[in-house]
């Protein structure tokens, strides 16, 4: 086995795909991430953090920056190239055959009795679709980070972390079993924590990181339970062996579940529900959505990565992958939804509309996009819930492209605004702000000079008129926004959303309740999506600048602006054209151009499933198409009327506030869910930790027990001391003392006087004589002959 074997065999090649970024991570972390120590007040460190005054902080060296960026880009580049090779290999096998045959390779990882647990790689049609999107989006984000993080004192570390992130995502995508997928899942959770809290000097950043990690962790535990149960039932976690295997699926569908089996829940349903809960956490669906908006505290490339290309997509990918398990035992295309599918449909559609309403009332440019992501993920989950397998996968791919584009464009806007703020202060006030990045705490009191409020470069109310100073950003943002809104015919978002609605309508027309619900809610959500997108564009780019910062906002020239705008352009291209692989063949004009015989995407990806499960292509119906048109154009039009025709002037309040009144406050505060969770979960848990665990368990019981041991040991020691004094000292010292006393008494016999000695001799002689006489001569008498 050497490198050549890996490169030439399509079964083995997928092993190498995650290697590039993972290796980049290790190389950067261990070798090229070098820093020099500077005082914390130096300009290069950027931002004033009073906690670190007087200390030396590490700031990355220029050479380290260059090396790390190079290593990172090379790593993701290798992954991208290898992914393309794999994609071509897969396409080369041909639609229809690929799926029945797949690229797979596994090694025996752990021997478990007679069998062994295998780990390996699997490339089937779904994987191919993912491999088109993931490395490309990640590569764009890498390029973007070169410019965006150019002045950050920890840029090398950033590249190491996003390389790890990309590596973990790719591992998850090519994995052939649930466990390896879960490994990638968890590594991404770690990376999200480290990246959201990348600017850890800021309190809101590290709090957001902890929130993200904990919230997804709660879901991950339940998901792990599901995985364990699945393993217990089937003895394997390999996708091919469970999901492409009718007997296993049938067995799971007919075994009653361990929990709640009495309610008619089958094993597959319970496992499915647990796995879906994992996705609800990872993809920020209601009720575990609270971490995603806060995750905007991280740098924009991170937001793009987490919320578009990688993490949340991983959640949806997981449930798309496990779809056969959810469907087992049910017939969604005949209206018979199993419990997991029902759960997905309900949660997904509810989340879609729920977070769309919140997005309407947000003023932070990234937060709008965050809620929009949650909403779109809801679309995907709902689509999967009603059995629209291909539609969900399609929407995942297109969403990744335009959402990454939108995030990066908003990052460019923010960058430009900070630039403008800097300029404004140079010309205007003598303010001590340093805004090379948004790391300074907006509520930092030490910076209170003449201004009454500190400047937030992300607040859309401070923007306006940016189309003039940042044209490239404007056009790419516009394309991404229109794609998100589903602008008819020309954008990728339209085709994928339309397919979802078509599938939902199919069920609606057959009278299935869940499908109807999904259709209605998703249509409403699509309307709101279009509206808030137009609102965002209008507030940001149209009209006149509302603050001096907006007047001077631009990206400048040079490598920074080039590396930031290049990905935008590439992704804008994809946001338009990526949708044309999924055009229904009966569609007028477009169908004939792009799908002469069959829907290419549909016909390729559907072979991931078992033949029995493969969905039917929904027959072409005008109603869903019309609905898509109406909601998209309606929402766009409404937004145009409110925000484009008469763009807001400086100081003018949002007309929505007046329109919605108190409802607006509720929406702006996200339905107070954060406060609810804080009161219901966080506070009691804190109380429990502080009072019960620390106070009672730790101090009283554990410390008490240890003190008891200490006291017992001391008591035993005292006992030994006593024994020592009496017994050992007593005997050990007593005997010599006795001997000494006796000796001192006895030596008085040695007086030195001769006459006394003689007397004693005489006494002794007499005594011997007496004894002699008493024993009648003893020996002497007998010896005499």
């Amino acid at each position, binding site marked *: 086995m050497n490198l050549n074997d890996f490169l030439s065999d399509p079964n083995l090649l997928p092993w190498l795909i995650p290697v590039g970024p993972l290796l980049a991570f290790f190389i950067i972390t261990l070798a090229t991430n070098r820093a020099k120590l500077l005082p914390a007040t130096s300009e290069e460190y950027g931002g004033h953090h009073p906690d670190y005054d007087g200390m030396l902080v590490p700031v990355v060296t220029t050479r380290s920056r260059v090396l790390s960026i190079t290593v990172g880009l090379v790593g993701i580049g290798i992954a991208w190239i290898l992914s393309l090779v794999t994609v071509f290999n897969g396409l080369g096998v041909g639609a229809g055959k690929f799926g029945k045959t797949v690229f797979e390779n596994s090694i025996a990882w752990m021997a478990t009795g007679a069998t062994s647990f295998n780990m390996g790689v699997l490339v089937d049609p779904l994987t191919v679709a993912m491999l088109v999107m993931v490395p490309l989006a990640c590569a764009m984000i890498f390029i973007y980070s070169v410019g965006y993080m150019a002045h950050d004192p920890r840029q090398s570390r950033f590249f190491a972390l996003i390389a790890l992130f990309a590596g973990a995502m790719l591992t998850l995508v090519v994995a052939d079993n649930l466990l390896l997928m879960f490994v990638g899942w968890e590594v991404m959770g770690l990376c999200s924590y480290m990246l959201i809290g990348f600017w850890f000097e800021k309190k809101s950043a590290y709090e957001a990181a902890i929130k993200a990690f904990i919230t997804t962790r709660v879901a991950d535990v339940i998901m792990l339970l599901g995985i364990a149960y699945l393993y217990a039932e089937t003895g394997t976690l390999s996708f091919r062996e469970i999901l492409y295997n009718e007997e296993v699926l049938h067995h799971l569908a007919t075994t009653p579940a361990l929990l709640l089996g009495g309610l008619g829940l089958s094993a597959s349903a319970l496992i499915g529900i647990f796995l879906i809960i994992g996705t609800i956490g990872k993809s920020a669906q209601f009720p575990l959505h609270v971490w995603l908006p806060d995750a905007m505290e991280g740098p924009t490339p991170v937001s793009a990565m987490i919320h578009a290309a990688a993490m949340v997509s991983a959640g949806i990918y997981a449930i798309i992958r496990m779809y056969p398990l959810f469907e087992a035992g049910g017939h969604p295309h005949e209206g018979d939804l199993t419990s997991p599918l029902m759960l997905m449909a309900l949660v997904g559609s509810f989340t879609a509309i729920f977070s769309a309403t919140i997005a309407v009332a947000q003023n932070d440019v990234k937060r709008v996009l965050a809620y929009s992501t949650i909403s779109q993920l809801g679309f995907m989950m709902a689509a999967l819930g009603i059995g629209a397998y291909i539609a969900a996968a399609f929407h995942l791919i297109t969403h990744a492209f335009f959402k990454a584009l939108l995030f990066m464009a908003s990052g460019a806007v923010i960058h430009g605004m900070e630039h403008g703020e800097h300029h404004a202060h140079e010309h205007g006030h003598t303010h001590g702000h340093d805004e090379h990045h948004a790391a300074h705490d907006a509520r930092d009191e030490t910076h209170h000079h003449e201004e009454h409020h500190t400047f937030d470069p992300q607040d859309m109310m401070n923007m306006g008129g940016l189309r003039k100073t940042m044209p490239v950003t404007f056009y790419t943002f516009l394309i991404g926004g229109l794609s998100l809104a589903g602008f008819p015919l020309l954008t990728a978002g339209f085709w994928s959303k339309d397919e979802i609605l078509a599938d939902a309508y199919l069920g609606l027309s057959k009278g299935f309740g869940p499908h109807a619900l999904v259709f209605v809610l998703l249509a409403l959500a699509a309307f709101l999506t279009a509206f808030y997108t137009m609102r965002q564009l209008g507030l940001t780019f149209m009209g006149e600048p509302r603050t001096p910062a907006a007047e001077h906002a631009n990206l400048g020239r040079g490598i920074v602006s080039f590396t930031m705008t290049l990905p935008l352009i590439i992704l804008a291209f994809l946001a338009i054209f990526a949708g044309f692989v999924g055009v229904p063949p009966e569609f007028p004009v477009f169908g004939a151009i792009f799908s002469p015989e069959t829907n290419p995407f549909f016909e390729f990806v559907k072979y991931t499933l078992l033949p029995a499960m493969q969905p039917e292509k929904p027959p072409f119906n005008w109603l869903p198409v019309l609905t898509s048109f109406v909601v998209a154009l309606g929402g766009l039009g409404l937004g145009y009327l409110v925000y484009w025709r008469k763009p807001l002037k400086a100081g003018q309040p949002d007309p929505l506030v007046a329109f919605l009144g108190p409802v607006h406050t509720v929406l702006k505060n996200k339905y107070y869910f954060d406060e609810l969770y804080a009161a219901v979960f966080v506070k009691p848990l804190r109380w429990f930790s502080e009072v019960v665990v620390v106070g009672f368990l730790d101090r009283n019981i554990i410390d008490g027990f240890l003190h008891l041991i200490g006291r017992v040991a001391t008591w035993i020691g005292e006992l030994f001391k006593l024994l020592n004094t009496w017994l050992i000292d007593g005997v050990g010292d007593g005997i010599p003392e006795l001997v000494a006393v006796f000796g001192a008494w006895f*030596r008085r016999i*040695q*007086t*030195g*006087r*001769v*006459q006394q000695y*003689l*007397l004693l001799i*005489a006494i002794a002689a007499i005594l011997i004589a007496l004894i002699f006489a008493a024993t009648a001569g003893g020996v002497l008498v007998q010896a005499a002959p």
Partner: protein
Amino acid sequence: MVPLWAYLLVAAGLFCLGAYGVLSRRNAIAVLMGIELMLNAVNINLVAFWRYLSPLNMAGQAFTAFIFVIAAAEAAVGLAIIISVYRSRQSVIVEDVDIMKW
């Protein structure tokens, strides 16, 4: 003739008197005199036994002659010592010469 035991009795008595003198007299010369008495008692015993038990074997008398020699030598040396002690201490009390002790 006088019975043997009479002589032996006298010798024993003389011996015990001599012993008493050795053990209880303070003056060193008196102690020496006691020793002479004891030696004489032994001489009496020897000669008496010679005369009564084996008068033809001269062992008894020869032995007695040797005891004379020894007594003389011992008296000479002893008195010399006493005089030497007297010179350094101005005293011949036996009890006071007691430095050979612990």
